[in-house]
């Protein structure tokens, strides 16, 4: 009889671990190490010269973080980021849910609509940004022209990206156009998994459409909602190409988000230490937001 040093359960565990090694190695090499590297650099004087010469950065006594506190750019970038994420995620969820509910009915052309509505999602983000930038172009853009016609010539200078008060909304519209299709499709998949017999039972018990939606559909849809919203929060928290292409952070820094600020510090100012400081604070904020979001859903689930 053959004897083993390990029992079957331990052997299975070891085998599983061996299978996980490639994924773990990739995660460590391309996610964990760069994060630690970035955090370390945020405490150092580290510029492009260090990259080229291979010389390590030098501890600079919190100078990168103190530098961020000397102007209002970081504070404003944080406010812009949170405003953008909140507005886009809320509007995106409401519109996506409405679209998913419509597509879940037996309306004519629903299948065709489902196919074509994915088009914005497959368009690369930079291309989407260029398309919307040209649409919103204030002198000869299509949107300006359409608004001029719709208002019978009363509004001829519509320039959403030029006004510091509306520029964030302009980028938000482009983000919604790009992201709504995927969220709608995921919610639609969730809706199609809601058991019909439970809905029918509720209907027989006298529940109206609204009651059925809140008491049957939403609870079944809850896991999908949780995943889609956290995906959307992360996607918009780290949104960069739309901002950089459409506005470059302007006008008057009105669309300078944390993503834009970190890029400017690292690759325009060529100060990778300050860029890393922005990125580190940004990462901490994103972790906190996702943590609290998950806590809220956990409390709701328990409820």
């Amino acid at each position, binding site marked *: 009889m053959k004897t083993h040093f390990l029992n079957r359960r331990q052997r299975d565990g070891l085998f599983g671990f061996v299978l996980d090694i490639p994924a773990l190695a990739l995660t460590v090499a391309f996610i964990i190490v760069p994060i630690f590297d970035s955090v370390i650099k945020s405490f150092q004087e580290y510029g492009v010269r260090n990259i*080229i010469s291979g010389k390590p950065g030098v501890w600079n006594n919190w100078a990168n973080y103190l530098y961020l506190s000397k102007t209002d750019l970081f504070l404003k970038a944080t406010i812009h980021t949170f405003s953008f994420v909140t507005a886009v995620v809320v509007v995106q969820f409401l519109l996506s849910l409405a679209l998913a509910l419509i597509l879940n009915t037996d309306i004519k052309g629903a299948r065709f609509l489902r196919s074509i509505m994915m088009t914005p999602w497959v368009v690369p983000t930079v291309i989407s940004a260029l398309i919307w930038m040209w649409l919103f172009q204030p*002198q000869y853009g299509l949107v300006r022209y359409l608004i001029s016609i719709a208002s019978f010539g009363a509004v001829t200078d519509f320039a959403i990206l030029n006004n510091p008060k509306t520029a964030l909304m302009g980028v938000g519209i482009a983000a919604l156009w790009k992201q709504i299709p995927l969220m709608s499709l995921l919610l639609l998949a969730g809706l199609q998994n809601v058991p019909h017999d439970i809905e029918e039972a509720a209907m027989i018990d006298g529940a109206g459409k609204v009651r059925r939606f809140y008491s049957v559909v939403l609870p079944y849809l809850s896991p999908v909602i949780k995943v889609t919203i956290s995906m959307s929060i992360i996607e918009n928290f780290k949104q960069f190409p739309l901002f950089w292409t459409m506005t470059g952070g302007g006008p008057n820094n009105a669309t300078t988000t944390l993503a834009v600020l970190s890029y400017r510090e690292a690759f325009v100012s060529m100060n990778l230490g300050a860029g890393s400081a922005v990125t580190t604070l940004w990462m901490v904020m994103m972790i906190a937001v996702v943590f609290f979001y998950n806590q809220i859903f956990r409390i709701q689930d328990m409820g």
Partner: protein
Amino acid sequence: MKRISVCMVLLVVVTALVFAGGKAESAAAPVTIKVANYALLESGYEPFWKQVKVDFEAANPGISIEWVTAPYGEIVNQVVNMAGGGNKVDVIFGEIDWVPGLVDAGLASPITDILSKSFIDDFYVDVLKSFEVDGKPYGIPLYVSPYVLYYNKDLFTQAGLDPAKPPKTFDEMLSYAEKLAKLKDANGNKVYAFGQTTASVPVSGASLNALVFNFGGQVLDAKGALAIDNKGFRDAFAMVQLLDQKGYNPQNAKLKDLRNLFALGQLAMYYDQSWGFNGVKSINADAQRFTASAEPLKGGSGSGQSLLQAHCFILVNNGKSRADATRKFVEFVISEETLNAYLRDLTPAYPAKHSMAAMESVVNSGILAGASPAAGRVQVQTFIPKISDLNLELCALAQAITVGKENLDSAIAKFKNTATVKLSQ
């Protein structure tokens, strides 16, 4: 004895073969130089650069060019990332404003380390001064230009203005603008009188810096410190605000937006780098007929000085053999033979060398004739590593007082605080 003799002969033969072979190999060793060039991704310029490679390699057997390409906005990062991995390019084709950043990064070499003295001495001294960091030039220009005033002769005629008499001062420009702003294009669209770029891109900041020079002001002093407490600086931004209040200037526009509007006949005058006309012509070929150029305007107590703009080569020293090949490449490109057709057909600009002053494309350049007297009236801007960031802050200031509707003096005070902090880091 016989055996020893044979061994000695063999040793001599083998030694001779090894050394002879080594010598022959090093003499004929092919050299590849890496040239970072964003223009290869721009359809208008791609054929020119491809032909440069063909012609240069034919004229210099044993030297080949390897292009390193990336879009305009990404090429510097591409070069830096490559260098970080130990793979340095030899030449970077780019803007004059890229020089200080690449010097600070430790990548750019003084051109005196690579190019011959006789070649360098042929360049205008004042032009080379614009490339100096700590007294050494770190870039060599292919061609140069101040910001020139392009104007639409047809629109001048329609407004009752003499197209042969462009404005010379900002006051004159404002009186012209009053008439030009009343025009509509063929489709009933508004005609903007005067274009000054203010969008959030570094080149717009450089253009605003040139505007400050027009008014006799400065942004940085000779040591590279922020020095904006001067009348010219305030006057220049007061003009930006006035142009916006009167609706003469397309708000928050990039240079390419201004070129589009100008090509479509919706912009009567605007400031651009001379080679920006290529962008205008690519949209409307008829622009050649209705476009003329003029000197930068004089404002306040200024004499209409401007900022030198240049497309240049920034060189990296990668050892003797590659440096020699780089020298040959630079001397091949910055020559009348290579650049004559380029400056005539693609990129109207002024040569930077004495020996190219009389070249046909410059002498017969109808487009640049009006602006020619200003070619030598450029002010040297002190190079600082954070020039791009400073330029973006200048754009933010222009936006604050135009689309942001902020008070001029408080916006300048805020700019001063932010720029001081940024430059001190």
